[in-house]
């Protein structure tokens, strides 16, 4: 996503493909991450469209139920590990060194490795589609014993997850080291932009929980191939323990997917409201408390496994508590907009869309926290609607907002505002058309992960499928717009946005290939 000017000042660097393979430059690696996420977004999107085609009408039309299950599983893995996480890591690579006034990432060589692991991991994961016994079909949650019924794909799945984990750990360590050690003089922690803060906390979460996932999937592997019985009830193991392990990783993971979006939105709203962010300190504390709470709410994904009453009550209360810091954030954004002087360029539209639809997802999250009601919601389309509301118009919209916001900075060219706005409105309309009806079918009793359904769910499934195709095609506009902007366009100024503040806007557009080093002025 960058057309970086040729470096004439420092050492020669290789050109062509070798430049990208050997690069240790944070901007190049950021670009690689973002393009990788973009490719995976379309692959994962195609899988979603297979799912939605099959669900267009009751009855089995296109795919075998086993393949359908593979699609739901792979769609989730690709979208989570291949799109949202790399996209945010890409943004972090591009922006964090610039935002803290550092010359590059702290560990540039490791940065290169952590990216180049990803294509290998995903080739491995996607190759399982062509294996005997099919791709993994036990859901991305990999619950045993079902996941152990996977065919030849199983070890590939586990190693792919290991590599993805390794890549995110290396990325996270690098980001932590950069934020801690590479700040410019005067850039104290409480002066850092919120995007940097949210990433610091995200990286902390990643480092804390990734070993849990790695250990968990390794135990699945030994259960299948080496005769251990960690999760095998017949051998004295405990299948529920895997769920505890998985969600102990999984719940912080969902905040890993959303916290950087908070940072992005906290950068964009003040820019276009031309007014400083309301409650900077409380935003930081709210992010930190969300991160803390994420460690003690994991079992709300497991209300129906039959935990003791005390456990259910504890996890219900802890989960409800998350609404408080999340609420603080939403209130702060709205108050930032209040009495500002707003304009509505594409990044702002996406950010506002984020706030509205993320909040809707938050509301359904609150409903899901109520244990007795969760018995009715659990594993239905209501849950599907909930997490897609926080992930698609949540994380994905934030990533798109970030792309529009920084694209002029990255490329030096302005994007087409008309195309951007078209993209926003189509995306918003179709995303709601896709996911809002899912609330209804969920409440009416449709379970998730089924390839076929009873007739009473037909209407809304049809609407959702139409929405999904619309949303998918709308994203082609995004791709076209980005390529067009890279190739050329009106030159962007250094400031780009009238109300923008932060070190990145003091650099030229595009910023020089090497290092920051215009004298950072930190107020």
């Amino acid at each position, binding site marked *: 996503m960058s057309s970086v000017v040729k470096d004439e000042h420092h050492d020669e660097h290789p050109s062509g493909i070798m430049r990208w393979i050997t690069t240790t430059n944070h901007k190049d690696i950021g670009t690689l991450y973002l393009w990788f996420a973009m490719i995976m977004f379309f692959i994962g999107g195609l899988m979603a469209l297979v799912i939605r085609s099959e669900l267009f009408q009751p009855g089995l039309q296109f795919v075998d139920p086993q393949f359908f299950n593979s699609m739901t599983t792979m769609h989730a893995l690709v979208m989570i590990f291949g799109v949202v996480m790399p996209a945010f890591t890409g943004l972090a690579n591009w922006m964090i060194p610039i935002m803290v006034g550092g010359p590059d990432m702290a560990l540039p060589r490791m940065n290169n490795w952590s990216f180049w692991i990803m294509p290998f991991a995903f080739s491995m994961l996607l190759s399982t589609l062509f294996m005997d016994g099919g791709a993994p079909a036990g859901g991305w949650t990999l619950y045993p014993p079902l996941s152990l019924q996977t065919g030849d794909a199983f070890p590939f799945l586990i190693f792919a997850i290991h590599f993805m984990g390794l890549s995110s750990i290396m990325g996270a360590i690098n980001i932590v080291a950069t934020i801690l050690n590479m700040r410019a003089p005067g850039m104290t922690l409480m002066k850092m932009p919120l995007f940097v803060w949210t990433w610091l906390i995200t990286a902390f979460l990643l480092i804390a929980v990734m070993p*849990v996932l790695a250990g968990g999937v390794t135990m699945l592997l030994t259960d299948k191939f080496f005769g251990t019985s960690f999760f095998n009830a017949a051998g004295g193991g405990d299948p529920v323990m895997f769920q505890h392990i998985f969600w102990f990783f999984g719940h912080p993971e969902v905040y890993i997917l959303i916290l950087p979006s908070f940072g992005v939105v906290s950068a964009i709203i003040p820019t276009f409201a031309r007014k400083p962010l309301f409650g900077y300190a409380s935003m930081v504390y709210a992010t930190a408390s969300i991160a803390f709470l994420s460690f003690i709410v994991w079992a709300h994904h497991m209300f129906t496994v039959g935990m003791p009453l005390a456990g259910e009550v504890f996890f219900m209360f802890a989960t409800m508590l998350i609404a408080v810091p999340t609420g603080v954030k939403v209130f702060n954004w709205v108050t930032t907009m209040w009495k500002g002087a707003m304009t509505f360029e594409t990044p702002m539209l996406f950010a506002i869309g984020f706030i509205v639809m993320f909040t809707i997802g938050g509301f359904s999250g609150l409903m899901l926290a109520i244990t007795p009601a969760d018995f009715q919601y659990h594993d239905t389309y209501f849950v599907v609607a909930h997490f897609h509301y926080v992930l698609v118009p949540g994380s994905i919209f934030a990533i798109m907002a970030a792309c529009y916001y920084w694209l002029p900075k990255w490329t030096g060219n302005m994007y087409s505002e008309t195309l951007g706005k078209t993209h926003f409105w189509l995306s918003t309309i179709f995303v709601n058309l896709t996911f809002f009806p899912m609330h209804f079918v969920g409440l009416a009793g449709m379970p998730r992960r089924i390839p076929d359904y009873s007739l009473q769910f037909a209407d809304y499934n049809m609407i959702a499928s139409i929405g999904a195709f619309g949303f998918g095609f709308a994203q082609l506009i995004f791709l076209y717009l980005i390529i067009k902007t890279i190739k050329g366009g009106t030159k962007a100024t250094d400031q780009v946005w009238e109300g923008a503040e932060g070190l990145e806007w003091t650099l030229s557009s595009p910023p020089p290939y090497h290092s920051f080093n215009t004298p950072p002025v930190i107020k």
Partner: protein
Amino acid sequence: MIQYKEGEFKEFIIKPNNSLSWKGNKIFFFILFFVSFVIAFSFAMAGMWLILPFAGLEMILLGSALTFCYIKNSQCEIVKIDEKNVSVSLIKSRNKKVFGCRKYWAKFILNKPRLKGYPHKLVLRSAGREMEIGALLTDEERIKLAGMLKKNVEQ
């Protein structure tokens, strides 16, 4: 960061900015270490001991990354100027490279970047040999350093 000492000779110690002290790095590491191991041990208690080695490996990686980063940031250059000589020592962990020349021939040159946004480059030139100084600094500091050095050589 530039430290300036004046005694028998004038000494400039040039270090990159390290925004977190070694102590701060250690505290951060031990917080993460503690959190990771509380988690890993709790699972080990429940029989799920395979998380422990992964947590251990990860902590080794984190620890070495922070250490490496700190070492990289604690390399320094020392410029000594006395009556007759100018010497520059480059200290990179345990390696020390010294470059010396007559003060009379020494010349500090600050090259302006060709493009806006690029850093300035400060070199010491003497009898056709050239060495870069202050690559570890931010641009603002480098300009300041150039001024200080030039003043001292000219005297």
